[in-house]
């Protein structure tokens, strides 16, 4: 399939599945965003070959890609999820030439407030049901999410004498949100190296760092969990620290990639959480851990997400398809590109270059 525009309707294949039943959502509200990616790949030399892997959102009960359309002067492309995490990727490539390398991607994304009732979580947690086989995958360590050593020590200490799964989650969540802090000097979302964080004893980081620590501790405590890489799409109704837009609902979201987390309780399914945004709220609004607004967000973000955001995948330390020069890839929240074998700086939209915008559709 070469040099053609491709239009995919709402029948996009589902890349990841949530098993949370829709009746669990309270006060469900829907939002729609038109998201546009524009690429014009840059390199030191005039003539170069390029390969680009761009993450695409998964479909679930709480987010749907209503349409996806893309065009450009690429020589080849495919949409694939050929990796252990079913992470959906739009792959495009350009052969060596001195022409511009452009790609335009448009999506309409519908999201719904994602909240799982605490009452139901606590009830299911007490039942201690067996885990489904496929969920056990999210108990395994990866290069950046170790479950032994110091991570295990901390997890054991935090959950000592606690039998109930949700109470264990609560203990780990409280410790992570209190111990970590947002370090604005960290580039992008951070590497998410939970092992290094506990070994160094430095708990400053950004969303991937903090979510990965939460995930590693939960896995070490025997609770399936995973990061969810995605991007903020617009205005937060809770705080401008968690998403902004102009008066028309428009936002340049090129640097708004954001990593959240989920944990699994049998009988309920995957439950949303976002420990990193607690630290962002504290930093941006200059609040303390025990301030009322922080307390309110802490209570919300152990079982809900505000959906001014869309998720791409749960992939860590994996290999993209087709196989790039560099692997494994730490995470895929940003576009990833290789030019003549060199990796473009995905943390810098200008150097790469790409622009991502979002328009909320009323």
């Amino acid at each position: 399939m070469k040099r053609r525009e491709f239009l995919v309707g709402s029948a996009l294949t589902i890349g990841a599945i949530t098993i949370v039943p829709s009746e669990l959502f309270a006060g469900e509200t829907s939002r729609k965003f038109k998201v546009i990616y524009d690429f014009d790949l840059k390199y030191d030399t005039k003539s170069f070959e390029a390969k680009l892997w761009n993450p695409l959102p998964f479909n679930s009960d709480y987010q749907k890609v209503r349409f996806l359309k893309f065009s450009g002067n690429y020589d080849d492309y495919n949409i694939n999820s050929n990796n252990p995490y079913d992470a959906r990727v739009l792959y495009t490539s350009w052969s060596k030439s001195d022409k511009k390398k452009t790609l335009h991607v448009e999506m309409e994304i519908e999201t719904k407030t994602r909240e799982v009732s605490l009452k139901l979580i606590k009830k299911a947690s007490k039942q201690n049901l067996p885990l489904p086989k496929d969920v056990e995958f999210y108990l395994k360590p990866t290069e950046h999410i170790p479950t032994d050593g110091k991570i295990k020590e901390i997890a054991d200490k935090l959950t000592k004498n606690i039998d109930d799964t949700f109470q264990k989650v609560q203990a780990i969540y409280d410790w992570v949100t209190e111990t970590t802090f947002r370090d604005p000097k960290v580039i992008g979302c951070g590497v998410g190296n939970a092992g290094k964080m506990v070994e160094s004893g430095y708990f400053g980081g950004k969303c991937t760092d903090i979510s990965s620590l939460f995930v590693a501790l939960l896995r070490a405590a025997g609770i399936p969990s995973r990061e969810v890489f995605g991007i903020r799409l617009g205005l937060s109704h809770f705080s401008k620290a968690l998403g902004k837009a102009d008066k028309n609902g428009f936002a340049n979201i090129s640097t708004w990639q954001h990593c959240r987390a989920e944990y699994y309780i049998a009988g309920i399914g995957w439950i949303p959480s976002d420990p990193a945004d607690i630290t962002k709220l504290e930093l941006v609004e200059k609040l303390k851990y025990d301030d009322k607004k922080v307390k309110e967000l802490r209570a919300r973000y152990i079982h809900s997400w505000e959906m001014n955001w869309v998720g791409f995948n749960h992939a860590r330390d994996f290999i993209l398809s087709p196989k790039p020069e560099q692997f494994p890839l730490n995470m895929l929240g940003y576009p990833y590109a290789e030019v003549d074998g060199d990796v473009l700086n995905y943390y810098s939209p200008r150097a790469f270059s790409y622009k991502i915008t979002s328009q909320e559709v009323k």
Partner: protein
Amino acid sequence: MRYIFLILALFSLSFAKVMVIHVEGMTCPLCTMAVKKSLKKIDGVSKVKVRLNTKKATVIIDKKVDKKALLNAIKDAGYRGKIISDKD
């Protein structure tokens, strides 16, 4: 003309060395670029290839390039290097 290029290439290779360095601390694809850029700043380094999966940097250098300069360049980029092979 082709022969002149061939002779020049062979001549330059006789003054070149291939160093393979184990680089510790690289965690993502961008780390390989940081190591590559730092090594390429050294005079006498003609080609650098860094691989994340093997954690190895292969560097073609002039024989006059000090090995310590290579390790320092890796250190400046924020990683630790250890020479594992050094061939003429």
